[in-house]
């Protein structure tokens, strides 16, 4: 009898902690009342013993990535675009040792500039292409620009992402148009559906659909009761049938593609990603990819799937839109209180590989780099910038997730925090009322590998009206190891 009561108490105790998920509010890092400010204090960043942080440059607007030229000078790109439909001028800036900024090149209204690599006398930049489609640009040090490829399918939720250069080719990531393969009202909330009403995900190879369709509010008309029925890989309001084949083509969405260094038509490397944001080459020459996973939003919401670090294998299919981190979503990852997830593809192009590591749900694991210098430590580990959750827009979290830099042992998949904000709770500096990390978007090791630069996008508040970025709050941080710990 007593044992039974104790058992009931244990169950009640567990239920008290977990059963009330649905009634608990979202507490995302960007959910800050009022207008958050940006304090800057490197001492508010916690690091493993023996490391120190310093601020290199501040006052940047939406910085995304960094590179070094052959003389060791530091360059940064500002995106020129942020979620929340905020448009600025994309810029390539040179930062000197005192943090002074010199503009090398500027772009048009087709951001975000997401990535930059310096290679043999020129800069190579990914232009996200939210308005005109994605591009890869070559920019000379005197600011002259040449588009090496244009018309990448970037006018949806996700853009043309990071690039790396290997063996005479530029490898780059291209995100999907949607959350999980179906255009819905969430895409209007992103801002693109009205201006690109026919846009949708494009498969890289022919696919056969199950004919699963989704009924939603018709956000393209003013009629209050108008509904739209939409199928996978199709424009908003276009239903599909079982057995229907969608022709694959290149360039496609949710893929890593490559072009020759001098430019040319894109070639497929691998596909079935959702948003392959970060690419980096390991010290042993392999390419790895960070892939932002599904959100709880839109006509086909998905719950509880973590971002992924993959090793890039040529020709492989990585599972979008029916797998998460290599696991079939059929009957799993259902949003509490909503419908089961059903497959969209009737036949799969292959079996997705096993992930290298799975990050926290909604952490937004983005730009990364490998430590190659034993003097810095953790040689061979990947250092990954976690932009942090965009809750509640992407789904609920019980506490801020991300807003830090983690390191990943690519042999074991073990993830350890490397740079986080001090304090009893995790979160962006603006929420904690401190002066440390806000939203790390990428990291880059110095040419000698003795310093890690963190490119911190700055404040991105999540309001009822959507994301609200704050100009001039971006920072570049530098992490070094003390010679005498």
């Amino acid at each position, binding site marked *: 009898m*007593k044992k039974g009561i104790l058992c009931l108490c244990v169950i009640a*105790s567990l239920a008290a902690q977990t059963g009330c998920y649905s009634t608990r509010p979202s507490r995302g890092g960007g959910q800050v009342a009022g207008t958050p400010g940006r304090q800057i204090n490197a001492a508010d960043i916690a690091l493993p013993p023996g490391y120190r942080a310093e601020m290199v440059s501040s006052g940047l607007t939406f910085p995304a990535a960094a590179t070094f030229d052959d003389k060791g000078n530091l360059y940064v790109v500002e995106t020129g675009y942020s979620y929340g439909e905020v448009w600025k001028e994309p810029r390539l800036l040179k930062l000197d040792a005192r943090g002074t900024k010199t503009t090398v090149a500027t772009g048009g209204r087709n951001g975000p500039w997401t990535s930059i690599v310096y290679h043999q006398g020129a800069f190579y930049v990914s232009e996200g292409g939210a308005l005109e489609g994605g591009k890869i640009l070559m920019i000379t040090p005197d600011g002259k620009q040449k588009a090496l490829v244009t018309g990448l399918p970037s006018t949806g939720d996700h853009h043309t992402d990071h690039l790396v250069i290997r063996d005479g080719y530029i490898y780059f990531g291209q995100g999907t148009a949607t959350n999980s393969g179906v255009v819905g009202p969430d895409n209007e909330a992103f801002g693109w559906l009205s201006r690109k009403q026919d846009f949708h995900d494009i498969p890289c190879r022919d696919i056969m659909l199950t004919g699963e369709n989704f009924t939603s509010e018709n956000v393209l008309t003013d009629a209050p009761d108008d509904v739209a029925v939409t199928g996978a890989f199709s424009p908003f309001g276009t239903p599909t049938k079982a057995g229907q084949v969608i022709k694959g083509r290149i360039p496609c969405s949710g893929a890593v593609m490559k072009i020759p260094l001098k430019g040319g038509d894109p070639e497929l490397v691998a596909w079935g990603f959702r948003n392959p944001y970060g690419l980096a080459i390991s010290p042993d020459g392999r390419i790895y990819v960070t892939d932002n996973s599904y959100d709880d939003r839109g006509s086909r919401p998905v719950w509880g799937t973590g971002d992924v670090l993959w090793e890039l294998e040529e020709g492989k299919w990585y599972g979008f839109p029916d797998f998460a981190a290599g696991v079939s979503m059929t009957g799993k990852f259902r949003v509490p209180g909503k419908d089961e997830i059903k497959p969209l593809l009737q036949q799969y192009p292959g079996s997705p590989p096993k992930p290298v590591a799975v990050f926290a749900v909604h952490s937004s694991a983005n730009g990364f780099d490998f430590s190659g210098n034993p003097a810095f430590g953790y040689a061979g580990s990947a250092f990954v910038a976690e932009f942090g959750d965009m809750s509640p827009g992407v789904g609920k979290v019980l506490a801020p997730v991300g807003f830090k830099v983690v390191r990943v042992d690519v042999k074991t998949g073990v993830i350890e925090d490397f740079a986080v904000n001090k304090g009893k709770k995790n979160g962006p500096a603006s929420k904690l009322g401190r002066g440390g990390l806000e939203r790390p978007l990428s990291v880059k090791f110095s040419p000698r590998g003795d310093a890690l630069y963190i490119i911190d996008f700055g404040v991105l508040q999540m309001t009822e009206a959507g994301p609200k970025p704050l100009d001039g709050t971006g920072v570049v941080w530098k992490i070094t190891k003390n010679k005498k710990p």
Partner: protein
Amino acid sequence: MKKQYFLMLGLTIAMYSCAVRKSEPISGQVVDASDPRVKNGQRLYHAYCYKCHPSGETGLGPAVTSKPGFLTRFQARHGMGVMPAFSKDQLSRKDLKDIALYLKKLNKL
């Protein structure tokens, strides 16, 4: 009975209040995974648990560092609320014990 009820209530409150950050930048240490069982628990934790309880902290789910091992094992096997249950095919009894052992080490940092 009242005593047991208050004990469980206290345990629940303690589990919440004691859930503190344990990662390397905060504690200055990492889990010593030289013990193969701890190493196995660490690997499995990162494969199955980390995404909702990053570094043992609150994320999509609640913090787990300060839970007693038997509760961790019970919850992982049976699921509760929105948390999925992990079958014996996914995580054996020994695997669950290894995960609990890893969390115990993490909690001690």
